[in-house]
């Protein structure tokens, strides 16, 4: 239904390439949801096409170049930090085309490139605060993909949040070196639980395995990241950090419409509303815990709560 039709001249057209499925409950979905939201808001004056599952970096290059040379798109988004090198090469070649890529801050000095990233450490910190408050065993487990980028930022923020409440709490982190190995993620969660963890979190699409383990064990809590993962296990998910790229996209769109093709780099934060802590209503969070979490959010927003990442 998002097919391209060049009928309406004033339609703002976006093309986006993303590494995994558009409904992965994680990174790719966060962008897909944002575009869908904008589409709903702008109606006929907005259209987008996408190429999903493009984990092969080189394939993304083909798509991006094709879109760029077609001249039909107002904005071309490379949603994946691994696509940076492609944008770096394409941008000077197509100076009239506007590109956006993330998550990173680097616009390579080109004025037709936007960059965006998420300060996922902030939501990580809040999740960490709540996790520290809720753990009884004082052992918390984290399941991560590879120790870089967005995932590392979130995990490091999470650890800082835990330490902010109680530095004695052990946070065990397990990077399983894969974004897709659900089975290994599940066993990593089992290992955490076997070693006493009663709160878990994690980043990337393979964590659905870990959520499942937490759920089956019953008394283990989960904190979501990137998308709202509540539906995976309504009984045990406490809160999620959710990315709302809409706020970045909206600004980019208005900049392009006013003739600026790039040069800005954005960061989603709690302050600008790009990062939102979405609580699970079904989970009975105590008033005190919620109060502390909200205080942490507010503190990060107004700068009264600071932390350093390792």
């Amino acid at each position, binding site marked *: 239904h998002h097919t391209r039709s060049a009928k309406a001249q004033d339609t703002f057209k976006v093309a986006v390439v993303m590494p995994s499925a558009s409904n992965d409950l994680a990174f790719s979905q966060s962008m897909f949801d944002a575009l869908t939201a904008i589409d709903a808001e702008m109606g006929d004056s907005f259209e987008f096409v996408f190429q999903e599952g493009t984990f092969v970096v080189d394939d993304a290059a083909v798509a991006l170049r094709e879109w760029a040379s077609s001249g039909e798109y107002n904005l071309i988004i490379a949603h994946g930090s691994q696509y940076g*090198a492609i944008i770096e090469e394409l941008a000077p070649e197509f100076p009239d085309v506007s590109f956006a890529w993330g998550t990173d801050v680097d616009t390579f000095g080109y004025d037709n490139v936007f960059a965006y990233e998420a300060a996922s450490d902030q939501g990580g910190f809040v999740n960490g605060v709540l996790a520290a408050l809720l753990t009884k065993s004082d052992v918390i487990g984290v399941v991560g993909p590879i120790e870089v980028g967005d995932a590392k930022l979130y995990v490091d923020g999470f650890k800082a949040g835990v330490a902010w409440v109680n530095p004695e709490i052990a946070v065990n982190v397990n990077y399983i070196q894969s974004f897709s190995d659900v089975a290994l993620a599940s066993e990593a969660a089992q290992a955490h639980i076997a070693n006493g963890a009663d709160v878990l979190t994690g980043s990337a699409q393979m964590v659905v395995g870990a959520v499942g383990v937490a759920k089956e064990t019953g008394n283990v809590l989960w904190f979501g990241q990137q998308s709202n993962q509540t539906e995976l296990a309504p009984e045990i998910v406490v809160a999620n950090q959710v990315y709302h790229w809409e706020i970045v996209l909206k600004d980019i769109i208005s900049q392009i419409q006013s003739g600026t093709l790039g040069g800005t780099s954005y960061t989603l934060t709690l302050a600008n509303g790009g990062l939102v802590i979405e609580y699970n209503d079904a989970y009975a969070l105590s008033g005190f815990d919620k109060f502390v979490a909200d205080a942490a959010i507010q503190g990060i927003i107004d700068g009264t709560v600071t932390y350093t990442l390792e």
Partner: protein
Amino acid sequence: MMAFVHRFFDTSKLINLVLNISLLLLAVGAALLVGAVMIWLMDADPVKAYQALYEGAFGTTNSRAETLVKATPLLFVGIGICVAFRGGVVNVGGEGQMIIGALAAVWVALSFDTVPRFLENIPIHDFPHIFIVTASLLAGFLAGAAWGGIAGVLKAYFGVNEILSTIMLNQIALQLMNYLLNGVLLDPDQKDRVNRIPKTARIQDYAKLPRLEWFSDTPTRLHAGLIIGLALAVVVYILLWRTTLGYRIRAVGQSNRASRYAGINVKRQVLNAILISGGCAGLAGAVQVLGLQYRMQTDGSAAGFTGNAGFNGIVAALFGGLHPIGTIPASVFFGALLIGAQSIQREVQVPASLITTLNGLVVIFVVSSQIFIKRLTKRRASVPPQPTTPKSVPALQEEPTQ
């Protein structure tokens, strides 16, 4: 060279070739027909989809260039596979060998962060450039060969089945890549960032393989790697059928026992076959970095970098009759398919998974059609008995090398 031309242009071979190609197209057509039904079931227009496939692969100068770009690593890996399989070694380690080759190439390329003085003083046009690129490519070849060599030594001297060891070595290479890109090879600009991206610095312009600008007026990504690949195909063809080394490798691939009888060192040839094969795959990785991506980056998966060329190259080689020259059109065919299929996804917005399914169907249909080609050739070869090209596929698993 005359003999070479002669080999490829005698009439019976030409007829066989025509037969081969028509059957191939028929098989692809059948697969696409099944795919059309699926596309239709997805509420998309199959005609539009296949238009997009064609346009995406051949429609514009750029798409033609992209087809060739996609074909390039398949060609390198495929050429290597020809050597390995002819030598009786089932090398499914192309992925790992590509990765290791690329790592070595990018490492060498990056170590020339300035042009060394001694290179500048040589009065040959572009000498520093040629030297650095050659050194990087060589590093890629040697590293790929060494990685393959591990499986070779394991097979020849420890009797470890190479299918097993190469599958395992792919994973090991992947982790090694992740480790190095997040460690010693990490882009200095990324070092101090918490959310660093595991990638190397960009290589200098003089370390890049040139793009082929004569291909079109507008810039494309087509790079000199393709030319190197074509040259490599000829070299490996000569190696396999014109040199004593090739003779020995093929002999060992056909029969360990007869080779031993002939005084050929079976273990050494098994090792040679996989060294060359790994080297070619290593070159594939090197060429991807030096000609296309200019840096290495990882998303944690092997395919993110290799684009599955380590596996698709096997398919290309087998469709090319395990012949380096045959691998050329086979690689282009697969390159076109992979590029065109993506274009279907973009143009009619079907899920990426449909494309994967379609690729699977094409592979299955094409490989299944081979029997008809075999039957036809056999019937044609009836009277008089024909001298055959080295077309026969060696028995893959013969006796253990002991």
